[in-house]
């Protein structure tokens, strides 16, 4: 966690703040796209302008090895959690109006999304053999020449599989993982109910995170549609995604990821 930003609270948010991620059309994977979209949504909700810059080596530029990361002034901060804290130190916060119990709930739900949805996305793209062969390997190493692309892919796959084994997901089958996703979506759907946002009238970082993951799942074409079907079962979640897309991303065509995508790996939300 980058604690150096605490000394930069006096500076206002600059105009040239940049968000770095991997190449949108050819390289970025499901989980990274979800995280990046979550951060973009959060910054939009805070009304903080940011440019999205795509670089092939974004993962290596990041201080923690994870995308996305933002470059603001002379600070570099990566991942949603530290970015939220950094933005709060600058004086913008979405969750100030919540009381203590609600803040606890919000943090718990964010952990649920990270624990279940993000891990399921990682499992699907690195541990499911069909997806790995057909989608992940070609995409992950695409900016690099052979044999570097294969070596980097194998290395990353080995790392992710080690982590899955440590947390006990290595023994799960795809059906079990999809069931976990379903359970998570069910919980989110129950929590959302008929409200516009998770904490009634105002969006919070939880809304940004959920939007990032669910929108990516809904709009990414994989080998099968099973994952997106699980999310489509819950109509209030799809309505939630559409609402946030319309409110925060329409009219920001250049920055958002809902730009008409010509690659075969994307399909627009209908």
């Amino acid at each position, binding site marked *: 966690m980058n604690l150096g930003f605490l000394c930069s609270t006096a500076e206002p948010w600059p105009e040239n703040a940049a968000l770095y991620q991997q190449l949108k059309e050819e390289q970025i994977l499901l989980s990274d796209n979800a995280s990046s979209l979550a951060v973009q949504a959060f910054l939009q909700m805070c009304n903080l302008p940011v440019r999205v810059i795509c670089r092939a080596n974004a993962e290596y530029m990041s201080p923690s090895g994870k995308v996305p990361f933002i470059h603001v002034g002379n600070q570099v901060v990566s991942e949603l959690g530290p970015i939220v804290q950094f933005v709060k130190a600058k004086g913008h916060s979405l969750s100030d109006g919540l009381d203590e119990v609600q803040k606890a709930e919000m943090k718990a739900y964010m*952990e649920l999304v990270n*624990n279940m949805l993000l891990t399921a996305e990682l499992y699907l793209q690195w541990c499911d053999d069909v997806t790995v062969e057909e989608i992940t390997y070609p995409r992950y190493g695409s900016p690099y020449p052979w044999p570097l692309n294969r070596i980097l892919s194998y290395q990353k796959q080995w790392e992710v599989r080690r982590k899955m084994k440590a947390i006990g997901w290595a023994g799960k089958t795809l059906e079990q993982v999809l069931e976990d996703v379903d359970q998570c979506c069910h919980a989110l759907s*129950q929590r959302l109910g008929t409200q516009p946002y998770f904490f009634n009238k105002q969006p919070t970082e939880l809304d940004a995170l959920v939007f990032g993951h669910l929108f990516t799942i809904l709009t990414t074409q994989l080998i099968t549609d099973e994952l997106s079907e699980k999310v489509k079962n819950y109509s209030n979640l799809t309505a939630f995604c559409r609402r946030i897309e319309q409110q925060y991303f329409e009219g920001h065509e250049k920055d958002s990821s809902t730009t008409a995508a010509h690659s075969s790996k994307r399909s627009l939300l209908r």
Partner: protein
Amino acid sequence: MGCPGGGGVTLPRAIHGKPAWCHGLVDTAFGHPAGGDDLTGLLRPGGFGLRERQAARPAARSPLPAARSPLPGHEARPHLLADGPQFPRVFNATSGALFYAFLTHCEQVFSPALQSLLQAYAKFSGAPLIVNTINNCRRAPKGDLPVLVSEDTVVSQPAKILNFLRRQKYNADYDLSAKQGADTLAYIALLEEKLLPALLHTFWIESENYCSVTKPWFASRIAFPLSLYLPGKMSREALNRILLTKGGPPLYSLTEVEAQIYRDAKECLNLLSKRLGTSQFFFGDTPTTLDAFVFGFLAPIYKVCFPRVQLQEHLKQLPNLCRFCDDILTCYFRLTVSGHSPAGQDTADANLQKLTQLVNKESNLIEKMDDNLRKSPQHPPRKLTTLKLAAGGEESSPMSRLSP
């Protein structure tokens, strides 16, 4: 996580060989190997599961609801399970189905948390469980522990065990709304993400704790020569898990990772405390799955006496969480807060009696010496007010005479 190698079934061990906290928590160490290798023979009469089942079902909700285990008139017998289908009938809130289950487990890396969790859930929902302890993971039906065996089905992971119990209509979440069910899932994820690494660290990686408490405890329960290898293996796995999930850049050294995970754990405890507030359980007056999970994670932190206890100290600053643990222990595990079971209380009373008898004998001796002193010519006769030869009856006067 099956472990290799053979080992005997659990043999009864003397209480003094076990760490102190086990007496205060769930004591399931003793099995009587009545059937030799047969798992069904491992039954401890008067064990916690059985004692719970003798409690009568409460008619109305009391402030601290008693365990919903309605088996009046049942007496625990070691050979009960060998009788097979004669297992006592169970009536629960929704059906009168005949039900039979026993749970086997042995200590593993998560076991203090998991065994407390599952037994707490079973007690909250009224499922009759017999808890068996085995030392050898291979003896469990699937080689994977903890395991629930019920009639023909074998269920092996905690989440699945809870689902199984729910499908059998032992549902502690019956009264919860859908939103509360979703909250349960979210808080469980929070516990696993934030609190579990610190728990693992306290038990397995902190070198003082590991060497003085965890390793001897586990090694004493596992058969030689596995006891030389398994604790080390569990410790390495715990370290691996922490480093892989929490140890990415920019945290490069173990001390930085430790600082981060303890910060996270303390924040998690604060969040739980805020969520609990002043109510008795997390969702009102009756305990639910979330209470079982929180209890399962908090009880080892709260009760085990470690040399390095920063998490325990932080927990003790949150009085509502301490009260929550104590309530569940006294109400559902029939233990007093000081950690003595009622049987233990009897032995304590017996010890106290012996002590007072010793003290009386001492006081008699001292009085005789006093008499001799008085009779000696050097000292003038002293006026003695309360000199009485206590005949081994009341202990109060000798005690008061002995006090300075």
